[in-house]
């Protein structure tokens, strides 16, 4: 790795993040359970299969339209468990708090986390708190870890994906990232968009009912749908061809993205999942998703194709197609 210091690009969820994990952490921590680099690791104990995952939350600002860091920290880990095909059993939460942080704000965020945990039917069973000097933690960082019980019906892996499989998304994209960007206040844009943060355990479990017809699921967080689909293409060794027009984006989110020169495909989501299903199961999968409030906007967005150079391609309404590459650094606005 030629980078000699860590930059913000390494945290954006795209190519640089991937390099940091693969060329530093994987090299140092190497073990067979880590290598698949899935959202959750699968651990076996006496014949019981568990999913185990962790995530850190450093969102700025701490409170944004539609949610806050407490809710995000719970939902994020619940979702990593859900898309690995497991029922969340328990969470832990570690809080790194900056000296001077107002107690009533902390209480409100803890309450949010508690509410989110209740909504996801999962208890927070253990935790830790640390306080650091003023200036060292940006207010509050939360790390959550979670274990889940693997659904026996689920056999999820990129290697299960076949050419012709369909790609679905559970609803409209880019809302969380845009809500947070606007809440930061630097861009002076006003729009009504809420973060979509939500627990996906119910819709994920519903999809597990499809058995082997459900090949793979993931929640497209940092780096957006584009990054997640690139991981799919790389993992499956096949191309993903998207129908650009079919990808659901709310009008005002699309406008905000156009204004900022950002592609919605690269903007984070916190309450959506992507699923790959067998072609014959696509209609059933959409029905299952749409039957739930969190999946009401579910759509069929693409198809998997055999290819010797696995890429994500988006077909435009005019018959052209473009490569949807992995995110390179932070999405930056364009100027002309």
């Amino acid at each position, binding site marked *: 790795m030629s980078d000699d210091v860590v930059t913000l690009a390494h945290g954006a969820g795209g190519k640089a993040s991937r390099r940091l994990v693969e060329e530093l952490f994987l090299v140092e921590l190497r073990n067979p359970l880590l290598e698949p680099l899935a959202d959750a690791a699968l651990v076996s104990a006496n014949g019981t299969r568990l999913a185990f995952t962790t995530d850190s939350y450093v969102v700025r600002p701490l409170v944004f339209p539609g949610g806050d860091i407490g809710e995000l920290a719970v939902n994020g880990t619940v979702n990593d468990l859900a898309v690995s095909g497991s029922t969340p059993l328990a969470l832990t939460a570690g809080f790194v708090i900056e000296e001077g942080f107002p107690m009533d704000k902390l209480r409100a965020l803890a309450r949010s986390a508690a509410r989110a945990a209740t909504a996801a039917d999962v208890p927070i069973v253990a935790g830790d708190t640390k306080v650091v000097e003023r200036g060292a933690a940006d207010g509050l960082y939360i790390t959550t870890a979670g274990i889940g019980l693997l659904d026996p019906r689920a056999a999820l892996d990129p290697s299960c994906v076949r050419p012709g499989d369909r790609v679905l998304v559970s609803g409209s994209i880019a809302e969380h990232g845009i809500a947070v960007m606007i809440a930061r206040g630097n861009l*002076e*844009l*006003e*729009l*009504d968009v809420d973060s979509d943060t939500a627990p996906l355990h119910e819709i994920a479990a519903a999809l597990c009912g499809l058995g082997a017809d459900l090949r793979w699921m993931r929640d497209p967080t940092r780096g957006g749908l584009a990054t997640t689909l690139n991981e799919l293409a790389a993992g499956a060794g096949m191309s993903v061809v998207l129908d650009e027009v079919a990808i659901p984006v*709310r*009008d*005002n989110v*699309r*406008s*905000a993205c*156009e*204004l900022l020169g950002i592609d919605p495909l690269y903007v984070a989501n916190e309450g959506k999942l992507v699923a790959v299903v067998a072609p014959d199961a696509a209609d059933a999968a959409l029905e299952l998703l749409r039957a739930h409030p969190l999946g009401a906007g579910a759509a069929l967005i693409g198809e998997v194709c055999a290819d010797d150079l696995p890429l994500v391609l988006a077909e435009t309404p005019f018959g052209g197609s473009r490569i949807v590459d992995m995110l390179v650094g932070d999405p930056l606005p364009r*100027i*002309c």
Partner: protein
Amino acid sequence: MLERLPDGLAKVDFGGVRRSVSVAFTPEAEAGDWVLVHVGFALARLDEDEALATLQLLGEAIDAELSA
């Protein structure tokens, strides 16, 4: 453009997103007009007659193609 604001600014709606922009370069623009905005400045007022003329040409092209 939604409304004029003090200090040479105006509130503009971009398909559901609102922001205040400078109208120093489009003093003739009024609420209800469409403007081209670049880095926080309205650069031009959309001329509806011209816009319709261009759309007209597009329409003719479509008709020509359909009847070909």
